[in-house]
């Protein structure tokens, strides 16, 4: 078989070493650490003063599972409430979401629950949702108990971890857990530049694409 020695250059979806591409969106109140988690995961860095995200930022990162390479297309969104009207565009068609709150801020946990409800209602039915209680390094000023969040996550079928973008605790782990939970088989995914599966999906979800045909 072609996949015998070394990493396959052009992996065949039928064999081992296939590449899957998934769209992942980060949601949560402003300043809970969404951009910091992404920066830690993608570049291994942390900025004490991370600039607030305006609109959204797009990054990619790859994780390797035993037989699959998972490529994440990551959408990091703006947290302020009034940017909410733009959010559906980012979670539309997403196969995974990380909803982030700050363990030192009870309000941000409340906001996270509202996001979970919204995704359960509006996003793709099979979306994998993870809840991240970030800033775990600030446990001294904790306002949200770990057990409370865990119970809530269990009741709602969410992955849950307390993370710290600052110390890197559980950052790779949460992305890895999502990668493991994502369905790999029906996700049509080619290697390199041909992402037929995802591309079609984007078009399906885009009202603008339809609008232009009628013009």
């Amino acid at each position, binding site marked *: 078989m072609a996949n015998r020695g070394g990493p396959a250059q052009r992996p065949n979806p039928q064999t081992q070493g296939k590449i899957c591409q998934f769209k992942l969106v980060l949601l949560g109140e*402003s300043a809970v650490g969404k951009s910091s988690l992404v920066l830690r995961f993608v570049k291994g860095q942390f900025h004490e003063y991370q600039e607030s995200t*305006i609109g959204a930022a*797009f990054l990619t990162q790859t994780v390797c599972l035993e037989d699959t390479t998972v490529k994440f297309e990551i959408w990091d969104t703006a947290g*302020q409430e*009034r*940017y909410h009207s733009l959010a559906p*565009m980012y979670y539309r068609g997403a196969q995974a979401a990380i909803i982030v709150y700050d363990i030192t801020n009870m309000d941000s946990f409340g906001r996270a629950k509202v996001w979970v409800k919204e995704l359960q209602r509006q996003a793709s039915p099979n979306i994998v949702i993870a809840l991240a209680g970030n800033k775990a390094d600030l446990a001294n000023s904790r306002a949200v108990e770990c057990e409370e969040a865990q119970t809530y996550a269990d009741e709602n079928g969410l992955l849950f971890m307390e993370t710290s973008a600052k110390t890197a605790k559980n950052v790779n782990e949460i992305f890895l857990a999502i990668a493991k939970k994502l369905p790999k088989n029906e996700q049509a995914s080619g290697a390199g*530049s041909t992402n037929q599966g995802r591309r079609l999906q984007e078009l399906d979800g885009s009202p603008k694409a339809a609008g232009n045909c009628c013009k």
Partner: protein
Amino acid sequence: MAKSSFSKVDEYGFERAADFDYESYEEYMSQYLPILARRARKWARLMGNPNSLKRGPVIKRFMRKGVPAEHRAEVWLWASGATQLQEKMGPNLYRELLEETHDIDVVSTIRTDLPRTFPDNIFFNQGDQSEHRNQLFRVLCAYAHHNERVGYCQGLNYIAGLLLLVTKSEEKSFWLLKVLVEQILPDYYGPTMEGVIVDIDVLGELIRLKAPAIHQQVTALGLPWPVVTTKWFICLFAEVLPVETVLRIWDCLFYEGSKIIFRVCLTLIKSQSSSLLACDDFGSLAAAFKSTTSASSTLNCHQFMKSIFQVPGSLSSSTISTLREKISQDRHNS
């Protein structure tokens, strides 16, 4: 190794990135400095005459060629109508707003963003000691209480921050912020950001008309326009383009109004059309859009400002207002 004559911090206090290309910058500055000197002489003559600031083709050309740093505050206040507004509303408004009792939620939202505003600028990144940071807090807080419908919208921190760096005055920054938000731009910063959403669609339509191949490419690869352009509109290119280029854009924005924003967007997109059209997937297209703003052509602000009046072709205010009207009507009907 030859050391560059340019410091690690630019004239507005921004630390230059580690990969800053001093060589290209030096080359471009050697061309730009004589231009600056010539503009400075012309403006000095103009400003020397009392009442010489009058709207008309001469001043319009002067604005397009750039306002010298030493006159920017005054000229922006005049060009935007902020001076008249201030006279109409009374000279004490800003001070009175500072003395009001402030809503604690608004205060804490603004406070959260203070250390996150220009962390790479020496005037803002000296902790609570930063005088600019305290001024930024007061300007944003005063404005949020003055215009409660808008309150504090993320993005205004960058705009007010840059206004402070230029005018070195909180009060002037407050008035310029007020005219920008309430008169120059449509409803960008309100509770639903309706104005931004409409203008992004207006831009999409302009691209469809003026750069159909790019429009088709972006649609085919499924990249929604807001993904690329939200920050361009909200920050008025602050934190998007090099600072000198942003200020040159604002020279025109204050005089000619919001259609300048579309000229800049169209120029950024059209001048990178070959690299945009070469993309064959969503990810590379998103990356190519990101690099439109870091293209070397954006650093040469003088050339760039010339190009925004050539590259997009004709663009009348009535085209924009018709599109805005049509798109907001469609949004309300759907």
